[in-house]
């Protein structure tokens, strides 16, 4: 990350309400308010959002505007153990967290125990009809699925977006070539 980029992220595009820069060990780092999940440092009720462990965190650190104001309803595809999903839940109204693999889902449920607005679903994101009876229309979709055909997954889940919602941020994981500059 270059210096001017670093400076830009502090002022320019707005962070969602509930995400802010706080001092950790004398360094200003991204943070959200909530119970710690993976042993990250906290300061008061704020806990560090480690951009190296979370692609959404990294996008904010890079100054990308995800067009989230905070307090949205979010469909999170590919929640894995819930590292990033927990931070998103900290500043969202409700997060429907879809994960397909059994082992990370166990951790995800643990994270959800502490967060009444995080709803874990052991479902396949390629088959949205299998959770259409649980998930309500949402304001934003965050996608972090490590599978082929990520575009197809995004298109299939478009049906969950409210008519007036703009934000849809598919995050390409290693499974396909990343279009997002890394930190």
């Amino acid at each position, binding site marked *: 990350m270059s210096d001017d980029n670093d400076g830009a992220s502090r002022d320019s595009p707005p962070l969602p309400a509930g995400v802010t820069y706080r001092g950790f060990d004398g360094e200003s780092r991204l943070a959200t308010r909530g119970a710690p999940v993976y042993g990250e440092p906290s300061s008061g009720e704020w806990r560090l959002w480690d951009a190296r462990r979370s692609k959404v965190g990294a996008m904010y650190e890079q100054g990308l505007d995800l067009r989230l104001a905070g307090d949205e309803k979010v469909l999170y595809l590919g929640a894995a153990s819930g590292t990033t999903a927990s931070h998103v839940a900290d500043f969202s109204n409700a997060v429907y967290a879809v994960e397909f693999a059994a082992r990370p889902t166990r951790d995800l449920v643990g994270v959800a125990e502490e967060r009444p607005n995080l709803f874990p679903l052991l479902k396949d994101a390629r088959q949205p*009809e299998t959770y259409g009876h*649980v998930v309500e*229309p949402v304001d934003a979709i965050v996608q972090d699925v490590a*599978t082929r055909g990520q575009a197809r997954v995004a298109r299939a889940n478009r049906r969950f977006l409210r008519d007036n919602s703009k934000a849809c941020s598919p995050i390409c994981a290693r499974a396909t070539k990343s279009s997002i500059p890394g930190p």
Partner: protein
Amino acid sequence: MTERTSEHEGWFDGLDRGDTEAARNAIESRAADMPREWPALAVESGFVASEAKYYDALGAATRGTARAAATERERADDQQLIHAVRAMDDADRTANELAERVAEWAGSRFEAAEPGIEGARTVAERDPREPADERLIDLAARVVALDEEAIRLRAFVERVAGDVAPNLAALAGPVLAARLIALAGGLKPLARKPSGTLQVLGAEEALFAHLRGQAPSPKHGIIYTHEYVRGTSREHRGSAARALAGKLTIAARVDYYSGDRRPELDDELDARIERIRARDERGGGESRS
């Protein structure tokens, strides 16, 4: 898995608050093509008094369901998979063997008896006229039933292999993955084997003949059934088998030690086999990548 209700029902419709079993069943087996304003609908239908209460109920239901389902899937056990794939092979083999007997017997009584399972199916549909017909037709019906059981066992293996070893099942195909696990005696022993051993699993006879100095070393065992080995030209089949075995070994280790799905393994294998097959087009087998 039996419950499939109207497209317009939410997970909560018709449920009693606090019936966790029914809630799990509804979340897991119902479906809806389009999302609806479930919180408002739940209040309207009287399932909950307020939207805040709805989210409490949703939280309890989704957490309970995800926890129970994850535990169940994690318990999916390699030993069960081994029993199932062996039973599938036994059922297949026995059905074919008995079908031959039926064909031979039917040939002596009826005209135009076809061989195989299809022949047995035709015989099973006949009406018996004599006591011997009865025995023959009964036997044919058993062959058909056994063949159907083999098909059900295969479906079971295909489903469970992906839970037990997601990466291995994706790379090898679920049935070959199950056979490899069965030959090794479990996922753990398979994950601990070197790639060269996995490559010749199922070719033990040829391997020991080779070790006695009587035969060339086998190029492949059961992985021969994989399209990437069988579909590669003879000259490069050894390379393909070696490459496939290498990736399958990695997949088995990821499955045993970590358990998460690594789709990049699929791409690496595809690319590797493509390079090996490209040697044919260049008209030479000189280079080893």
